[in-house]
């Protein structure tokens, strides 16, 4: 199963709706890593099997990327 086909199953309207569960700030979609990025919480939330996982415990902490 290719990663591209999995990503395409996510409804773009859903991505627009979602906010960071911690800060309620906006999320940016990173199509390369398949992550939803919260700049305000410095966390990147994964999307697994087409389902966004908005759990801080499952998120990747963002390094200083400038």
């Amino acid at each position, binding site marked *: 199963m290719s990663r591209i086909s999995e990503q395409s199953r996510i409804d773009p309207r859903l991505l627009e709706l979602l906010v960071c569960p911690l800060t*309620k700030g906006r999320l940016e979609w990173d199509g390369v890593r398949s992550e939803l990025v919260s700049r305000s919480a410095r966390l990147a939330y994964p999307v697994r099997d087409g389902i966004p996982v*908005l759990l801080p415990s499952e998120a990747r902490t963002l390094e200083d990327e400038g």
Partner: protein
Amino acid sequence: METAYGFREVESAATKQGLVDGVFHKVASRYDLMNDLMSGGLHRAWKNAMVAWLNPSPKPGWRSLDVAGGTGDIAFRIVDASRGEAHVTVLDINGSMLGVGRERAEKRGLSANVDFVEANAEELPFPDNHFDAYTVAFGIRNVPRIDVALSEAYRVLKPGGRFLCLEFSEVDVAGLDKIYEAWSFNAIPRIGQMVTGDGEPYSYLVESIRKFPNQPRFAEMVKRAGFERVSWRDYSGGIAACHSGWKL
């Protein structure tokens, strides 16, 4: 608020969440079958009654959030009741349950109406004032901080939005309470053992039902979160109850 994992007291909300997650990962694929066996099929009638009370609008653009609804049971009923117009976002903290739900949505051709998000009822990943309705069926009992989940429900609802919560409750019929207690403490874990190969998750379920606040106490909690016109309906003599509130 005191946190309880069934009758085994635990120190923190985080610990309770971990235990609850374990229970549902174990039973996800056979969850609905178990519900049928445990309730003698009654859970279907209760869910139908909740959705009938919600009376989803057939207007396009009507949006609902179903919390702890991984397998899609409530979401599909809402879409059907809205004559295919409603859009339901299903939220669950458990990925296994959501996987089951999404497969079912695809089989029923409802993928355009229903989407799935893995998140915590205490930390909803949605903006304020977004949904027309919030439903939770047999899920609020498993949330470590129920008051926090209720505040989040209030936040994401639009003014005029409706809150509905279906949950096991306190039996208020003489005689039925004894029968129900015997059934739930003895039969349910054994059925769970037979069907899923593990009785332990079902012992947890039965114990957590006993710990959950009764109808008037839960109504108070719903009011404290800001909801108005709070009421409830008992189903099957109070084995289950549905609480309703409005964000006005």
